[in-house]
Structure formats: C-alpha cells, structure tokens
C-alpha cells in the first residue's frame, strides 16, 4: 500500500487525497476487527489495545507527513503504524509472535517499529516515546534533512513529567516536532477529568508552544490543521501541540468487557452512531460528489480481502527458532 507521499506529485488531486485517507481509515478499522477476532479466539498472545473510533487522527496526521518523516506511537499503536504505511501482513505476523513480523516476533503489538516508513516504534511506557520523537526532531534539525517528527500519545500521558521536559527543550531549540494528544477521555479505566487539572492546551502554551484543538472525528480538520503545523515546523518555526478530541469505542484492551463502572453503554452508542469518523467522512465524500456509496462499499470489500489474506499469511508463518532469542540484544 502506498502512502500519499509516494504518489507522483502531478497525480495528486484533492479527490485522491480524501479517497486515500478514506481507504486508510477503513484499513485501520478492519485491521482492528481482525485483531479482536484473533485475540478472542486465543490466537494472539499478550494484550490488544484497539484504536477503533480514533482512525481520523492517525490518518489525518500521517497523510500530512512525508514518508521520510518520523512518528512515535503508543501501546494503542496499530493505527499509527498502518497510517504511516506499514503492511498489514507483517503487522499481523508480529502480533502473533512470528519471525516474519516487523520485529521478528520480539516486539509484539506494543512495539512495532519500521524504519522504512519512519516509524520509530510503538511504546508500552505511557509517554515514553516523547524523548525519542523530540530526539528525532533534534537530529533532523542538526542534519538539516528537512524531516519532522510526530509524537502520538493519549491524554493519560499528560501526567508524565517527561512531556514537560520535552516541551521545554523542543521550544528552546525550535525543534520540528508535533505532539499529538489523542484525548479519548479515558486514562485506562479512569475519566481524564479525574486525573487532569486545568486547561490542557494551556500546558503547551505556557512553554510558548503553539497549540491547536481539533475534532478528532473529523478527518479533514485533523489533516488541514496538521498540515499547517507540520509546514510551520519544517520551516524552522518550532514545535506544536495538537489536541485531538476523540473516543475509544472499545475497552482499554480487548479483555476490558464489563466497563459500565466507568462509562455507560449509552455514551458509547452515541459516539458510534453520531460521531464515527469513517461514517462522517463517507457522508462528506458523497455530499461533495467525490464518491458514491458503491465506491465506498467497494473500498471496504477490497480492504476486507486484504486483511483476510494478511491474517492467513500471519497464521501460516513460522515462529522464530530458539537461536533467535539472543540475537539483537546488541548491534
């Protein structure tokens, strides 16, 4: 699957962009559908943290980045990885601990990394990648290679002190890094209002960092705002903070089924029925005559086949041999 930046420049039209973004969101949605299936069928070891409901953020940001630009991700990282251009077959292989996976089966769901798409890695320490993303921006500035780093994290990471150290350094050194806060309302099993004092964006602006807030369910809002912030960072004007308001459709992880003690089914249903990023985007595509319903259905059918084949590839793939356990401790 190509990312937008890989298409020849003269072929990019607005329609291509929005259709490509649509396909990417559908890929994330259907990828996660398969993850849920693999996990509940006990084929997937470990933990699975689904991104369903938040697709417009990963896609909106990554469509605005170049292929060479960097991203860092979180424990809920499949969406960022796919949006940056990763291949689902190698991702599923990694999720199942197979040698064909992105990390030879040694990273798993929470650690997928892919230098070919600038993915510096998902990170299972909440807020743990903020230094890495800022460091990538530091080297981009130092080496003058024009790259930008996007650092994805959830609102739960706002409690980590590292974030404020990195905001301070990034602003002092005018580093090309975008801190993308995905506020899905819940720090694991706790509403963010119970953990987060004051105004979130004010935390960034206190350091002089430019901050914007967008509707994270609106792909076009995320993309266009991200594009401005990325262009600005690339031009040497420094870091930015982008707050994306969103919602996590499922539990903290796949096993988090009975969650009424922290949020209602009614709340979940309202977001799914009225605020779904894919539905909203399809409605807009049809309204603007960029696509019809049949075209969008065809995209979904194609992606469904792609995911089915990718899962089959991963299930058939081999586990790493015992000789692999001591490889790659040191370079």
């Amino acid at each position, binding site marked *: 699957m190509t990312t937008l930046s890989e298409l020849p420049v003269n072929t990019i039209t607005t329609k291509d962009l929005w259709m490509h973004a649509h396909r990417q969101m559908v890929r994330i949605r259907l990828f996660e559908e398969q993850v849920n299936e693999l996990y509940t069928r006990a084929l997937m070891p470990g933990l699975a943290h689904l991104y369903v409901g938040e697709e417009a953020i990963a896609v909106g940001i990554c469509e605005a980045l170049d292929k060479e630009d960097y991203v860092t991700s979180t424990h809920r990282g499949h969406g960022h990885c796919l949006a940056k251009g990763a291949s689902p077959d190698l991702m599923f292989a990694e999720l199942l601990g197979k040698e064909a996976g992105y990390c030879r089966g040694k*990273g798993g769901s929470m650690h997928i990394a892919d*230098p070919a798409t600038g993915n510096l890695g998902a990170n299972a320490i909440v807020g*743990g990648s903020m230094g890495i993303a800022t*460091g*990538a921006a530091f080297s981009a500035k130092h080496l003058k290679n024009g790259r930008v*780093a996007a650092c994805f994290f959830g609102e739960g990471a706002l409690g980590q002190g*590292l974030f404020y150290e990195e905001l301070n350094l990034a602003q*002092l050194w005018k580093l090309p890094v975008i801190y993308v806060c995905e506020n899905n309302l819940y720090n694991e099993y706790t509403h963010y209002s119970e953990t987060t004092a004051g105004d979130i964006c004010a935390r960034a602006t206190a350091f002089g960092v430019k901050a914007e807030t967008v509707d994270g369910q609106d792909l076009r809002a995320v993309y266009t705002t991200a594009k401005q912030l990325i262009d600005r960072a690339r031009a040497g004007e420094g870091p930015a903070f982008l707050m994306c308001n969103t919602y996590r459709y499922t539990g903290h992880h796949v096993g988090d089924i009975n969650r009424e003690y922290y949020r209602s089914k009614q709340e979940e249903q309202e977001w799914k029925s009225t605020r779904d990023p894919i539905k909203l985007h399809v409605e807009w595509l049809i309204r603007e005559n960029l696509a019809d319903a049949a075209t969008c259905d065809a995209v979904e059918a194609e992606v469904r086949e792609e995911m089915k084949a990718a899962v089959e590839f991963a299930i058939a793939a081999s586990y790493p041999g015992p000789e692999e356990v001591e490889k790659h401790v040191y370079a």
Partner: protein
Amino acid sequence: MPDTSTRELTFAQAVREALAEEMRLDARVCILGEDVAEAGTPFKVLSGLVEEFGTDRVLDTPISEAGFTGIAVGAAMTGLRPVVDIMFGDFLTLTMDQMVNQAAKIHYMSGGKWRVPMVLRTTLGASRRSAAQHSQSLHAWLSHVPGLKVVIPSTPYDAKGLLKTAIRDENPVVFFEDKMMHHKLKGPVPTGEYTIPFGVADVKRVGTDITLVATSSMVQVALGAADMLAEVGISAEVVDPRTMWPLDEKTLIESAKKTSRAIVIDEGYGRYGVTAELASVISEGAFYHLDGPVIRMGAMHVPIPFSPPLEDLTVPTEKTLFAAAQKLCSKS
C-alpha cells in the same frame, strides 16, 4: 612510523582528548548536558570543547536529565552519535526509563531494525563530602540491564581508549568516571591514536599469591594494598575488568586459578552489587583451584554520610583490603 611517545595526562584531560578526537573524526558526535559548554562541566572535564566545536555540537541543557537523555536516544536512532553528560551518577535515577526501558531495549524490540549508538558519561564515587545524594556508585544498576554496555575505567590511559571505543560502538554505552580521579590521577597516555576493546580485562600488577579484582577508584586502593602485602611477603595480582559488560570472565578465572585466592573490591554497595557477580564468576570458574571463599568488599549498606570520619568508614581502603587479604592468605 606510528607515534609511540607518551605524556602524562590527568584522567579529565584523557577524557577530554578522547571526545575532541572523536568529534574531529565524526561530525555526528555531539555532547548534551548541564553546563557542558562554556562552564566545561562543574568538574571542568569538558573545558575548551565548545570553543573548538561550537554550541551546535556542545549543548547546554536545562536541568532535565530524563528530557535530554530521551533526546539522545531519539537522536542516536536517527543519525547522530550523542554523548550525554550526567553530572553526578546519583542523577542516573532520573534517566532510568530512557536508559532501561528505551535505549537498552529498542534494538531487540525492533528485531534489530533500529540502533541506539549513544554514550552516557557519568560519575561515581564517595570521599568528596557530598553526602548521600551526590556520592553513590550505581554502576551495578545499569550492568544488570541487557542491551547496555557498561564501562568503568581506572586510569587516564584506559579512560581515553575506552571512551573512543564507546563513541564508535553501535549500542548504548554507560561510561562511569570516578569524580575523585578527574584531576588527582595522572598517568601516561600515548600521543598517537589508540582504542581499547570492550570485554578485555587488564592485569595492573602481576602476582602469585592472591588475586585482587578491582574496579575504578578501587584499582588504586588495590595497588596500594598490594604494596603493603609485598612487605609481608604476599604477592598480589591486581586485575581490572575495565568493562562490567561485556565482562572478561576468562582473565578473572585464570588469575584466580593461578593464585588460588581472590578478593573482589568495588566502590558500589556490597549487597547485590557487581562484586556479587564477579565473585560468582570466579567461584564457578575456579572453584577447584581455590583455597578459600571469594571475598567481596564494597561500600557499606548505608546512605553515604556527610560527616568526614563517618564517610571514610563506608568505603573500602588500602588498610581494610590489606587486612582482608592477609587474613585470607593466612587461613588457606
């Protein structure tokens, strides 16, 4: 003709020379830390580097150890070779997520796809009357973590050769310097280019009756004790592992087999410290050659006190080592 001449340098001068040479050779090498530029660090180890390499390559940071160590991790992954300066080893605690969960794991977790070629330079050692939060020797903590390499030089010669190797290494390397040695310890350093490989111990003094395995500041203590032992007719061999990981097990075991007695001495806390690991390596490798148990000597299991007579009690000395060695030799 290779330049084989030497001159006397202090430990700090040797460290500075290694950094300057590597920065001249490789434009990717840069230094990050508190007061590293014009101040040259409070220990004055880096004086003069900013004048030659500028503030783009020698960067003063905020007092933000986790922040700039994290930046070094990301920068190392994406094309630079950063050297981080953590003023006191005690402040390593603030970098632990970045070093232990990030830098050490990234190569493995990515199946070998990303590399983290960075160096974290820091200090260890008591005796400076700096009390419990500025006197610890925490090299055991980092030696415990797979994915990190840990260097602990004891002479200016070793410091220069090992630091150059550390900067050229493709992995995260933690480099411990005893802060009391920076300006007090002088030694011969070749004028010409040289490096020292990791995982090769150095026999600092050859002997036949007892092996003293010593690290960092304790090498001088061991050499002093060896002089005292010689006066009572005991010939001590002093072995310096130089790197905690990779560890040259062979040289330690061979020396203990030869002398049949061993004491391991290190400035870190004795309990659960590196002495436990080194003593275990010797015990397993040389058990049937030993005339007695391997003795461990480290710092007392107390926070390092401020009061000078109390602080002096906490760290092994030539006298305590001499007494322990004499006792081991007389018993066996």
